[in-house]
């Protein structure tokens, strides 16, 4: 079948003398964390590879079974720590769905603003590191400059910059601080031009094009089969975004486009993410304009005991579909928490995308899949 790459074990006999095994990671500048890729090389051409994951496995799913529903929430920030707010939203959303909590409109708007800011921050970090892997150092520092503004907004809103634990079951931890709206608006005014700046450095650069076009190509059918989601899937032309397909929070109120690619290569995924940043800015501005008055948190009992049952709730995280599958037995602790992280599934496509390419392309492909090991290993 076209979309099943042969398993590593089945291709073991290829180990001839002219095949070199190269360990890339778990300590390597471009594996974005503690990913270990075992490459089998013929010269610099990749014959086969196997991803070895689990170096960052902390057992968050197990920990969550031993915490209360609210007590488990901060752990979820440690999944995709680049986009902690999104993790928090997905988890809190799953608990709310199970417990039947209605979130007040104001909290929904703030949630949308913060998650979209996080999406921009996550994409900025992705762009910076992706460009750096391909050798463009400057973009990295530009991206971090803008990401700093987002972290400042998160800090003034939640008190933390990275692992923010931004939301509570039922709404927000606190009302938005003074100056939040102005600062967010100022950032939105800034970011559009800055994205153009990055594009000016990369989009038409011949070297960038030759390093990203036709690299890591996957067609729509294979992308779905291998479980890609998020920008990696949309780069292959599948117009699927959970914010539109199954709207959560207040997303159905806002207008935005879903950018898609045509060729499913690294360059298309790059363009998709850049456009997503612009769309995120659009959503933030709409959410700011229509910010309702009222409560920032619904009344939720201090000890939350959702009814027995199962729930799957997923959101469109910056990296793809982030879902939480909760099983409740009616007690104060979840019976089972399953985290469906997009990076785990996106990384699965790595082997397919890399075979036949060069070592230099491996780092481009790791970059384009936009993985975070905290979410893969959980």
């Amino acid at each position: 079948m076209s979309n099943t790459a042969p398993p590593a074990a089945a291709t073991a006999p290829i180990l001839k003398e002219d095949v070199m095994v190269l360990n890339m990671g778990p300590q390597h500048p471009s594996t974005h964390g503690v990913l270990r890729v075992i490459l089998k090389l013929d010269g610099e051409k990749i014959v086969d590879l196997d991803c070895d994951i689990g170096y960052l496995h902390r057992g968050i799913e197990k920990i969550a079974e031993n915490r209360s529903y609210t007590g488990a929430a901060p752990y979820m920030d440690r999944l995709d720590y680049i986009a902690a707010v999104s993790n928090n939203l997905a988890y809190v959303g799953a608990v709310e769905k199970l417990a039947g909590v209605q979130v007040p409109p104001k909290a929904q708007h703030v949630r949308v603003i913060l998650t979209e800011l996080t999406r921009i921050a996550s994409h900025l970090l992705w762009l910076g590191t992706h460009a750096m892997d391909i050798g463009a150092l400057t973009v990295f520092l530009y991206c971090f400059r803008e990401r700093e503004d987002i972290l400042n907004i998160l800090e003034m809103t939640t008190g933390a910059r990275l692992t923010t634990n931004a939301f509570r079951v039922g709404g927000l931890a606190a009302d938005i601080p003074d100056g939040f709206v102005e600062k967010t608006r100022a950032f939105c005014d800034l970011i559009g031009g800055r994205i153009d700046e990055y594009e000016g450095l990369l989009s038409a650069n011949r070297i960038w094009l030759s390093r990203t076009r036709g690299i890591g190509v996957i067609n729509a059918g294979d992308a779905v089969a291998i479980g890609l989601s998020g920008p990696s899937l949309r780069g292959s032309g599948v117009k699927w975004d959970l914010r539109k397909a199954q709207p959560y929070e207040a997303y159905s109120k806002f207008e935005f486009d879903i950018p898609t690619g045509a060729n499913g290569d690294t360059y298309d995924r790059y363009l998709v993410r850049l456009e997503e940043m612009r769309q995120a800015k659009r959503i933030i501005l709409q959410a700011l304009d229509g910010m309702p008055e009222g409560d920032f948190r619904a009344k939720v009992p201090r000890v939350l005991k959702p009814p027995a049952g199962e729930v799957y709730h997923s959101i469109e995280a910056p990296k793809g579909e982030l879902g939480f599958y909760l099983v409740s037995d009616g007690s104060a602790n979840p019976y089972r928490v399953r985290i469906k992280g997009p990076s785990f599934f996106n990384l699965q496509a790595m082997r397919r995308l890399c075979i036949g390419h060069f070592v230099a392309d491996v780092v481009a492909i790791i970059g384009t899949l936009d993985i975070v090991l905290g979410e893969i290993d959980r």
Partner: protein
Amino acid sequence: MLELFKPYTEELVKIVILLALISLAIAYLTWLERKVIGHIQSRLGPMRVGWHGLLQPIADGIKFIIKEDIIPAKADRFGFILAPLLAFIPAFIVFALIPFDGPQAFTVGGKTYSGYVADVDIALLFVMAITSICVLGLIVGGWASNSKYPLLGALRSVAQLVSYEIPMGLSVMGVVLMAGSLSLVRIVQAQERLGWWFFLPQLVGFVIYFICGVAETNRNPFDLPEAEAELVGGYHTEYSGFRFALFFLAEYANMITISAVAATLFLGGWLMPFPSLLAPYLSWVPGIVWFSLKVFAFLFLYLWFRGTFPRYRFDQLMGIMWKILLPVAIANILVTAGVMLYLNR
């Protein structure tokens, strides 16, 4: 014993001065690089050690010297120790042939001295030969480390070497044809006679030479043998302390060499720009200043590249060199030769 060296006093003094100057230039090239790239990337670069980080290179030098020197247990010791020297020494030898100033550069005690250590008839050939040896250092270092990433770096070095050497050698042939000499001094003098610097009639050769020069020095966008993102540090992954510093210094010395040769061949070396316009006012400026300015312009270009470009893949580099630059360089020689034949009929 001293009698033996007496006839070479002039050369020896020049060599000592040159070594000091070049070392200082390399040290401050690293400072300049960090500053220029820092400002390109909207940050300040070194600021702590000395005024605007001016003492940073010295601090770095001390750090390199006092660091532990590690030779991996399974490395080939001889090659491992030899490699940095192979890269470092040739990089400095070349400067003996670079004309920093003309034959009558300065007068001390009634005697005129030239602005170079030696003027050799085959200087250009010698320079190109010696700079190629530097790459041998990378290859030996990558091989002797007995580690996979350096090995891949060394492999890339070889691929790169065979690719850029040929178009590079051919690109300067146009200049040689026009000047009628391989001596760097006479090439500059030929530009003086012509009244045109060779970069105009030899624009094609100039561009090819500089692209190949960037490849030779392993700088962005051709820094494949050491590509940090892919090969960790490439050929110097296993090197530390002073041995690493030698590779590092060799790279910067090579940058200066390539820039100096480019300035000599294509930008008129020590000559003043627009002599008819500027000579009345600026004739007091020594030629070495013009030369340094030209070298600096090239070096800035290097740094600018690094701040702007992503990195090519090594097969793409080979494609560019073999499929584009080589045919163009050959065409350039043929056209130049044809024109020279026609003019000297």
